[in-house]
């Protein structure tokens, strides 16, 4: 026995060594967490949580994950998702004060409600099926009604207007979708430390949802390994962007409010998630101090930077980075512990003001017209102050131009007349050929598919404002298609305005392969902004009306047929004779009935019936007809006067 064990031991050692080699040779799964904090010019604070999880390429089937969420990898495998983004947002991104030309806003300023887009790696004919199955799977995973996007009336297949050129792309959004704790819970469950440890422990639900804006985003993309036999790797990026209002005690209105993590979230970070490769907190200060000193000794200067006349930080940053537009303080939270929690605070000493870089044009969208029949949608692009300074202008035929893409989905009950498209540049109407470079329209089909409009505008650089308007008729829905709160109106999803020749990126001039957050900022991202959701009131029926109609019709029919049968079948003469013969024996009910009928006919009960029944009935009918005509006349007159009002 002992010899057997002895002979096994080297084998075991060899095996474990082999396993180690096999693991070592492969790239391991990586998880990293980061939190970016950024004071905003309008006395608010932006907190951007960023989690990245990478699964390296490996043999696809039956694979085991250490950190990567199994649910997501199964999703990717089953539906062959190449790239996908899902966002849950409430609140509207304030482009003017929170920025419109940095990677943060172009990636995290999302339309209200749920937005989902996905690119599939399947044959063209199966894309729609994959999309439908994906929406259902996601709705189960994230506790939301994403499955409403499965119907062909709610999604579209943008060709170039969305920024990703692929014919296997599907896009849909649900503006009315609520976003709350139940959506965050499953999202957090995808993280290896959930919300128990690390940066995600900060996410106190009431603080997050009290904010002015919160957007929870999940972006996944597959990375082709390029090797034979290996599947593709997956990069899962989860971000939560919150704009919070720090509580302030100072009365001075121009003074920025001081804050700390515990005052913003009511919680502190007690150590990083041990499974994370890196866990950092960044503090970005924009637009200020960047110009003050350029080539000073970093050690002394760093100290100056985090405690100076303007503000001081409660913790010493590990590093300070500079960018053209501001400063970035980096903190490593590995050092924090239960006894010494990480509670970064920013204390302003002097009033300060700065502004954010804005997109070349600021977009807003509104409805025109009145009534329940028709209207028009207008998109207004206004030049921002920073427009002149921005790069990305193009010279076409010697003219300086700005390109703007507009992508818009119309639900089928908004029947858009594309020929009514009008474009105004600086209040002057332009013909299509002057400014419209490209246009792609796919009209809607009633109850089958939604309409889509993609436009590329080429505007002169010195443009002050540009407006696009398009007219529509409102359609009628079937009574079953109205939602329970139809009187609230119907939402038109946000339009997406993107600037294809403008790209936002932040480059902190350092070797930053370590930090996924900063490297994602470094990548050039398309500058884009979403417009408001529009609320269109449609003609809604009075939903109790069918019941009223049914009940009244039934009553009238019952009365009509009942009395008709009565008249046809009843032999009055016989009855009266019978009653007379009965004398006073008649019961109370019958007496009452008799009296009633007598009263209706307008003659005494005991009157002898000398006339023949026929004559009586004809006399009765003329009288009755006269009465009916009188009443009908009165009713008609009443109706005439009432409708006249």
């Amino acid at each position, binding site marked *: 026995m002992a010899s057997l064990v002895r002979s096994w031991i080297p084998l075991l050692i060899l095996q474990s060594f082999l396993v180690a080699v096999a693991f070592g040779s492969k790239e391991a799964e990586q998880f990293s967490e980061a939190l970016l904090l950024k004071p905003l010019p309008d006395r608010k604070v932006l907190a951007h949580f960023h989690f990245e999880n990478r699964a390296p390429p490996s043999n696809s089937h039956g694979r085991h994950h250490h950190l990567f969420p199994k649910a997501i990898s199964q999703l990717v495998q089953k539906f062959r998702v190449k790239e996908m983004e899902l966002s849950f947002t409430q609140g509207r991104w304030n482009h003017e004060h929170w920025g419109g030309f940095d990677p943060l806003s172009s990636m995290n300023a999302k339309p209200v409600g749920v937005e989902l887009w996905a690119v599939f790696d399947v044959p063209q004919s199966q894309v729609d099926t994959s999309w439908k199955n994906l929406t259902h799977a996601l709705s189960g995973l994230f506790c939301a009604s994403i*499955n409403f996007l499965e119907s062909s009336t709610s999604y579209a297949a943008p060709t170039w207007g969305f920024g990703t050129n692929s014919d296997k792309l599907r896009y849909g959004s649900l503006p009315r979708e609520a*976003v709350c704790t139940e959506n965050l819970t499953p999202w957090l469950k995808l993280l290896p430390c959930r919300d128990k440890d690390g940066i995600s422990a900060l996410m106190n*639900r009431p603080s997050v949802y009290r904010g002015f804006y919160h957007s929870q985003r999940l972006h996944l993309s597959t990375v082709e390994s390029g090797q034979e036999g290996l599947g593709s790797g997956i990069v899962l990026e989860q971000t939560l962007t919150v704009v919070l209002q720090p509580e302030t005690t100072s009365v001075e209105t121009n003074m920025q409010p001081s804050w700390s993590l515990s005052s913003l979230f009511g919680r502190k970070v007690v150590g990083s998630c041990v499974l994370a490769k890196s866990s950092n907190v960044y503090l970005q200060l924009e637009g200020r101090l960047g110009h003050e000193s350029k080539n000073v000794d970093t050690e002394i200067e760093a100290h100056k930077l985090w405690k100076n006349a303007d503000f001081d930080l409660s913790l010493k940053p590990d590093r300070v980075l500079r960018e053209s537009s501001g400063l970035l303080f980096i903190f490593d939270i590995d050092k924090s512990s239960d006894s010494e929690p990480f509670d970064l605070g920013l204390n302003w000493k002097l009033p300060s003001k700065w502004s954010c870089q804005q997109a070349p044009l600021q977009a807003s969208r509104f409805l025109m017209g009145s009534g329940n029949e028709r209207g028009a949608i207008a998109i207004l692009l206004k030049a921002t102050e920073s427009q002149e300074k921005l790069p990305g202008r193009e010279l076409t035929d010697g003219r300086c131009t700005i390109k703007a893409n507009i992508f818009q989905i119309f639900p089928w009950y908004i029947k858009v007349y594309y020929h009514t498209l009008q474009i105004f540049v600086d209040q002057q109407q332009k013909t299509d050929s002057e400014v419209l470079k490209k246009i792609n329209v796919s009209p809607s089909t009633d109850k089958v598919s939604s309409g889509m409009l993609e436009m590329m505008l080429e505007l002169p650089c010195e443009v002050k404002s540009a407006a696009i308007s398009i007219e529509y008729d409102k359609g009628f829905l079937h009574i079953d298609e109205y*939602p329970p*709160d139809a009187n609230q109106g119907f939402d038109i999803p946000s339009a997406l305005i993107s600037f294809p020749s403008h790209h936002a990126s932040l480059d902190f001039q350092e070797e930053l392969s370590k930090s996924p957050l900063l490297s994602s900022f470094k990548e050039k991202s398309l500058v884009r902004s979403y417009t408001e959701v529009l609320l269109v009131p449609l003609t809604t029926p009075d939903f109790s009306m069918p019941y009223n109609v049914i009940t009244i019709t039934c009553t009238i029919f019952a009365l009509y047929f009942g009395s008709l049968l009565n008249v046809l079948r009843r032999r009055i003469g016989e009855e009266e004779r019978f009653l007379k013969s009965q004398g006073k024996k008649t019961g109370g009910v019958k007496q009452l009935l008799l009296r009633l009928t007598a*009263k209706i006919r307008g003659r005494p009960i005991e009157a002898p019936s000398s006339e023949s029944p026929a004559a009586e009935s004809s006399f009765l009918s003329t009288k009755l007809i006269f009465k009916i005509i009188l009443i009908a006349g009165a*009713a*008609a007159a009443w*109706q005439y006067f009432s409708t006249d009002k």
Partner: protein
Amino acid sequence: MKVLTLVMLLCYSFAFSSGDTTIHTNNWAVLVCTSRFWFNYRHMANTLSLYRTVKRLGIPDERIILMLADDMACNARNEYPAQVFNNENHKLNLYGDNVEVDYRGYEVTVENFLRVLTGRHENAVPRSKRLLSDEGSHILLYMTGHGGDEFLKFQDAEELQSHDLADAVKQMKEKRRFKELMIMVDTCQAATLFNQLQSPDVLAIGSSLKGENSYSHHLDSDVGVSVVDRFTYYTLAFFERLNIYDNASLNSLFRSYDPKLLMSTAYYRTDLYQPHLAEVPVTNFFGSVMETLHTDSVYKAFSSKTSNNKINSEMPLNQLSEHDELQKANIQNDELKTEKQKCPYTQMRVDLHKKLEKLENVDTVVNLGIAVMLLVVMVSSSLL
């Protein structure tokens, strides 16, 4: 020979009848709030209170189907974002950090509800949205909303009729989707919803009889609306004193309802349910307490099964604390502004009835009625 066949027949019939006495395998809960709009906050609070209770008593999230017709927690009108309270003391946030809502908003329809019960889904519907019960499952079905005589309204737009419910339950029974089903309904005239039930092993309890309303318990002036209904409030009062190891019986739960406090009469329909209620622990439906099957071979240490199985039918914890509980409740009653929210249907009927009783001159009424009817006929015909 005859005797033998008889015995065999008997055996067979016994075996057949005991075919459905399968072992209790798991517990499921379907919790439905059918009301939309902010002023129906209390219905969502009711449902979430039950959700919290069944979760506390051991039913995991994946076996709870939670249907909420509106978003109250992150509603713009909610002063307390991501929080829902069922008491004005705000001690307990029902929404918590780990709530999972399976059907919400526009998804809460009669169709989806019946689909969940009967298990007839589209292929793509994920598992988390399905009731994956089996023939050994105990299911708790809790519904709250606005209802009336033999119907329950869904989102003010459609109704679930008592026939629909009975048909769905019948289908569930035939498909062996449950061993025992308990239906609990908190709505006006809840008892009428059970009228059509025929399937065996179904226990039903409603908050009010036909013609009665279910009232809200109290108003929270911070939230601005009533936060809980009476029936649910007293159900929770019973459960708050229990933990997963208590063996309070269903009987003690049913006896804890006081018509004076409820302002309605709780109704139980037990004729379809064989076991004696005093012997059924509430955790049979409201929790997940599995019976452990012993194997004598290896583990012999714990044999506390017998002691565990004893069920206290005599209101275990109630008797001690019922007195002061009642007093407390009474005090609460005085303090709290009890808001009477009547069902519009019953209210209208009662009013009409009263008016009719006051009338003396029946003849004139009848005459007038006929005249009005004629007028209506004329008007409608002239309109058409």
